[in-house]
């Protein structure tokens, strides 16, 4: 069902936890749908020096959170904002079709955290000019999964 990479990031997730006094925090999803992702950023000189996450959700929700944090850690804000859900999926060697929404959630969580950082610091991040914080992501579960 899941690739080895997904299982590795699920069983040994990187960057789990919280950052006290984080520079940016983003939370997306909701408990009703069964997945919430919360990402904490530490930013120094435009560089993401630390990132942590907490996730309530299925295996791929946890794995995509872990991978997303890995992909932006040490990157500049400009690079981080370009993270796409496809990049997360690829880095995980793919996700089952009904689980692709988890990667969308991870992308949204990163953006939400960056947006929070921008708000707090009164700056505009290129690529987030038109960003509207959305807590729910609802394109998931196409319901045609074989089982």
């Amino acid at each position, binding site marked *: 069902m899941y690739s080895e990479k997904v*299982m590795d990031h699920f069983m040994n*997730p990187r960057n789990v936890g919280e950052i006290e006094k984080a520079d940016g925090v983003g939370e997306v999803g909701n408990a009703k749908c*069964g997945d919430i992702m*919360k990402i904490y950023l530490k930013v120094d000189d435009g560089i993401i020096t630390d990132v942590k996450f*907490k996730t309530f959700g299925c295996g791929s929700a*946890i794995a995509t959170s872990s991978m997303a944090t890995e992909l932006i850690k040490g990157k500049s804000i400009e690079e981080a904002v370009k993270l796409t859900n496809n990049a997360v999926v690829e880095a995980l060697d793919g996700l089952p079709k009904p689980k692709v929404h988890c990667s969308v959630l991870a992308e949204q969580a990163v953006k939400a955290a960056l947006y929070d950082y921008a708000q707090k610091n009164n700056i505009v991040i290129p690529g987030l000019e038109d960003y509207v914080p959305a807590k729910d992501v609802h394109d998931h*579960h196409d*319901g045609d999964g074989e089982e």
Partner: protein
Amino acid sequence: MKKRIYLDYSATTPMKKEVLDEMMPYFNEKFGNASSIHSFGREAKEALDIARDRIAKAIGAASSEIFFTGGGSEADNWAIKGIAFANKNKGSHIITSKIEHHAVLHVCEYLEKNGFEVTYLDVDEYGMIDLEQLKEAITDKTILISIMFVNNEIGTIQPIKEIAEIAKEKGVYFHTDAVQALGNIPIDVKELGVDLMNFSSHKIYGPKGVGAIYIKKGVKIHPLIHGGAQERKRRAGTENIPGIVGFGKAAELAIENLDAHIAHIQKLRDKLIEGIKNNIDYVRLNGHPTKRHPGNVNFCFEFIEGESLLLSLDMVGIAGSSGSACTSGSLDPSHVLMAIGLTHEIAHGSLRLTIGDFTTEEDIDYVIENLITIVDRLRQMSPLYEKVK
């Protein structure tokens, strides 16, 4: 070899050795078609008759009231569509419950699109229907009541005899899906007074792809599968003799061992329930505390999601199931958990562990131990948990 503990007996069971042994000759020695009059055919027919007698005996029916099918779902479909279409001149109203198996619910929904009216009875927090609500739901257009015997997710056992009495009084046919009941509680169709009852072989240590239905003598029903004259012209198709033989043997064993089986799994069930309750907080036992399948354990673990729980258990060799949306492949968590009044949030964190004949005390210890660690690990990761700490 890695430890593997199977706690998903309500999903399916391994076949017992005695069952496989009984089936073996029918694959390529006594392989005839039971409709053939030559010796190969007669051997098959004899085996078919014996299996039918065994099923009949297991539930107190006459052999002529037992019909083999290709599984539990086919039998559910047959019962409901067969009664609906054969009796539509009498009425077009069907009563069922909100916690039926999909093989009942989706048939009812299909019938709703085709001119029938269906009432879905509520259940209480334990998953029990309300007999008063049932009585009130019956109209003079009601032709069928279909209420499952034992729920497959939360294990709740319905008052089948009382429902049968109400149905009889009102002259309405009563079907009960007994797929999870056979082999786990005593069944006597005559004493219960039901009109139709169906079973599935692979839930009782028999082969997959075989089921049966009890149709009381005189019940007016159409076939679902038309064709050859098999099963007294009620269910066409070359009989799956090895499968039927295995099912017959499994039913015989199930009845012979019923008391020991129940005692064994109930003890382990209670041990597991206590172990979880005493060691993990923010949990909730789903289903009825006593009117319950002897091997069913179903808990909600707050703040975590069922699939991640299942995957984590799988990594330590434990096989369970969940009613979370992520495992059901639908937008919502299990309709059963919704019907007993759980919120989506809570229902997503459900775990079903079902115990069987091959489960041991040590298995249960191992599960409790691992569950404690896993639930803690997942909660530590959960943004919901931090809020209650």
